[in-house]
C-alpha cells in the first residue's frame, strides 16, 4: 500500500465524516422531537398509563387492551364518521373556494394585492380567538349570522348552528373552510403564476378560451400543486383539535366528536393516557397512509418532471 493510497483513503474517510456531520443535527432533531414522541406514544398505547403513573412510574403492559377498549368505545364509530365528514367537507369547500379566489386574483386589478393579503387574515389570528369569535357569530338567538340571514329574509326561524346535532358538524366544517382558504389560495395562486402566459396564448389560437382553457390547460398544468394542496389538507384537517374544542367541545351530545377530540378527551379529561395514546395511534396510522400516498405522488412527479 503506497502512502498515496493511504492518504486517499484517509481523505475519503474524512469526507464521509464531514458529510455525516452535516446530517447529524437534522437526524438528532428528528430523533428527539419526532422519533421519541412517536415511540413513546406507541409504547404508552400498550400500557395501563393513568394519572398515578406520573407519580409512581408504574405502567404495567396490558397488551392490546387499550386498542380493544378504544375500538369498542361507543363513541368511536361516530368519531370516525365525523372525522371523515369533517375532512371531506372541509377539503371540498376550502379547495373549491380557494381555487376560485386564486383564479380571481390571477387577474391584476386595483387593490388586488391588498385584497389578497387581507385574505390571509384567518391565518394570522390564533385559532382559539377565531373559535371564540365564531361562537358569537353562530350564536342562535343573537348571533350575527342568523341576524344577517333573517334580515335578508332567507330564513324565518333562527338556525341552531352549534346547538343541534344536525347542524353542529356543518357549522364546524364551515368555520374550518374559512380557516383553510388562505392556505389553499396561497398555494394555488403561486401554482397559477407558474403557468407561463404563452401556453394560454397558444391555446387561444387553437380556440381554447374561457371554460375550455381552464379544463384543458389550467387544471392539467396545476395538477402537481393540486395534489400537494389536497394531501397536505387531509393530513392537516384530520387532526384539527383546537377549533372544535373552542367551538363546541365535541358537543352537543358528541355531534362534533372526532378522533382527535376523543383522543384528547381520553387523555386529558378522563386521564386514561394509555387509551388516548391508542386512539391517537389510529389517527397517526390514517395520516401516515395519506403521507405515503403523498410521498409516492411526489416521487412520481419528480421522475416525470
Amino acid at each position, binding site marked *: 500500500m503506497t502512502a498515496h493510497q493511504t492518504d486517499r483513503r484517509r481523505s475519503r474517510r474524512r469526507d464521509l465524516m464531514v458529510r455525516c456531520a452535516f446530517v447529524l443535527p437534522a437526524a438528532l432533531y428528528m430523533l428527539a422531537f419526532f422519533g421519541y414522541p412517536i415511540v413513546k406514544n406507541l409504547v404508552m398505547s400498550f400500557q395501563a398509563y393513568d394519572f398515578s403513573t*406520573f*407519580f409512581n412510574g408504574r405502567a404495567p403492559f396490558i397488551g392490546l387492551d387499550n386498542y380493544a377498549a378504544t375500538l369498542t368505545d361507543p363513541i368511536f364509530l361516530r368519531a370516525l364518521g365525523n372525522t371523515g365528514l369533517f375532512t371531506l367537507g372541509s377539503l371540498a369547500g376550502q379547495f373549491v373556494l380557494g381555487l376560485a379566489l386564486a383564479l380571481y386574483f390571477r387577474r391584476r386589478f386595483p387593490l388586488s394585492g391588498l385584497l389578497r393579503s387581507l385574505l390571509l387574515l384567518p391565518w394570522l389570528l390564533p385559532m382559539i380567538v377565531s373559535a371564540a369569535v365564531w361562537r358569537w357569530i353562530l350564536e342562535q338567538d343573537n348571533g350575527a349570522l342568523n341576524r344577517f340571514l333573517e334580515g335578508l329574509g332567507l330564513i324565518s326561524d333562527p338556525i*341552531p348552528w*352549534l346547538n343541534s346535532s344536525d347542524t353542529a358538524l356543518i357549522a364546524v366544517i364551515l368555520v374550518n373552510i374559512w380557516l383553510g382558504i388562505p392556505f389553499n389560495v396561497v398555494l394555488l395562486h403561486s401554482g397559477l403564476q407558474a403557468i407561463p402566459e404563452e401556453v394560454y396564448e397558444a391555446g387561444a389560437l387553437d380556440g381554447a378560451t374561457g371554460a375550455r382553457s381552464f379544463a384543458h390547460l389550467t387544471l392539467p398544468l396545476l395538477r402537481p400543486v393540486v395534489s400537494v394542496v389536497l394531501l397536505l389538507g387531509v393530513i392537516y384537517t384530520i387532526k384539527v383539535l383546537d377549533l372544535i374544542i373552542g367551538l363546541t367541545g365535541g358537543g352537543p351530545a358528541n355531534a362534533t366528536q372526532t378522533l382527535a377530540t376523543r383522543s384528547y378527551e381520553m387523555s386529558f379529561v378522563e386521564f386514561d393516557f394509555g387509551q388516548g395514546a391508542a386512539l391517537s395511534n389510529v389517527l397517526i396510522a390514517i395520516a401516515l397512509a395519506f403521507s405515503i400516498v403523498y410521498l409516492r405522488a411526489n416521487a412520481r412527479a419528480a421522475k416525470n418532471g
Partner: protein
Amino acid sequence: MMTSTTQRRPLWRPGRRALGLTALAVPALMALGGCGGRSGGGGGALRVVDYYNTPADDVAIDGALEASAAELGLTFARERVPGDQLVAKVLQMGSSRTMPDLLMLDNPDVQQVAASGALAPLEQYGIDVEDFTPAVADLGMFEGTLYGVAPTVNTIALFYDVAALEDAGVAPPTTWDELREAAAALTTPERYGLAFSATASYEGTWQFLPFMWSNGGDETELDGEGVLGASRLWGDLVGEGSASRSVVNWEQGDAMDQFKAGNAAMVVNGPWNIAGLREDVPELEWDVVTIPVPEPGGTSVAPLGGEVWTIPVTGDEQRQADAAALLKGFLSPQNQLAMAQERSTIPGDAEAAAQFAAENPDLSTFVDQVSTARSRTAQLGPDWPRTAKAIYTANQRVLVDDTDPAEAFDEAARTVD
C-alpha cells in the same frame, strides 16, 4: 437535575463562552427544578404553586400566605400557573420529582392526586377540619384521610333581575313549579326567563348537580328517578322556550353575560360574578336566591367549588413540616375571613362563615347554599371525571335531540359501569 449538571461539567471542557452560559444555566435550572434549598434540608423559601392570576385573587392569597409566613419566620415563593394548565403542570412536576412544598388543587382533582400517593396526610401535622362545615371538610378527604383543606369555598345559586320580576309580577322562585312559571312569565321576544350552562364540559355537570341532588338524585345511580326528574326539568325549560337551546354551548361566563346583557332575567351562577356585576352593569338591580327545589320545604343541595391546599410528598421531612406550619397559619379563621371578603367566597370554618354571612348580606344566600352543599368527589373519588362526562353528554342529548331522559341516562349509566 443539579447533580447531573455538575457531573457533566468537567467532561465537556467548555470554552469560556460555554462556561459563562453554564454559570447562568445552573441556577436557572435549580430554580426551575425547585432544588434551590433542598440540599440545605429546610432552608430557603418554600415553593408554592397555585392558579390565582386575577389581581383580586392574587392579592388576597398573597396577603394570607404573607401573614402566616411572617408569624413563623418562613419565606415562600409563589408560582402562578394558568388555571387550565394546572393539572398538566402537576403531572409534569410529579414525573420529574419537582413537586412544590405547598400545592393548590381544584377540589375535584384532589382525589386523583391523592390516590397516586403524591400527597402527605395532613393529620400528622396537626391540621384538622373539625370546625369546618362538614361538606367543606369532605373536599380534601380521600378514603377517610385528610389530604387538603379549602380555606374558602363557593357554590352556585339563582341570580335574578329584581325589576324584571316585579314587572312580570312574579316572586323569586323557590320550587321547580315556581321556577317554570316564573321563567315562562319572564320570557319575552327579546329575553329568556332563565339562563344556565349545559356545555360539553364539567361546567355543564356542575350546573346540573343542584337540580339533580335537590331531587334526591345520586351520581352512583345515573338512571335513578332523581336524576331523570332533574334532566326532565331542564328539558322542559328549554322545550317551553323559557331558556335558550344555546345553553348547550354556553359556559357559565356566557350564561352570566346573557344576564348582564338583559337577554335573560334569571341565571344560575356563582358569587365570583358579584364584582363583575357591580362593575359592568351598575344600574342593574339584582338579588340571589338558593336554587329552587322540587317540592316546597325541600333542601337545596348544590355542589361545592373552590381550591384545596395540599402538602406534596417531596421527601424532605423538614420542608414538609415547614409547609404544613405555613398552611396551618394560612387557614386561620381570620385569614379565611379576609380571603372570603376579597374574593367573594365563603369561609370553610363554620363559625367564620356565620360571621361572614352577618357582615355580608349580599353573600348570605351563598352561605346558606354552602351549608347544605355537597362535594362532587366524596362518593366516586377518582371515578368522578368519567361520570361527570356521562352526565353532561346525556343532558345534551335531552336538550338538543329531545331524547327521552330515561333513554339518555340509561346509556350514561352503562358507559360508567
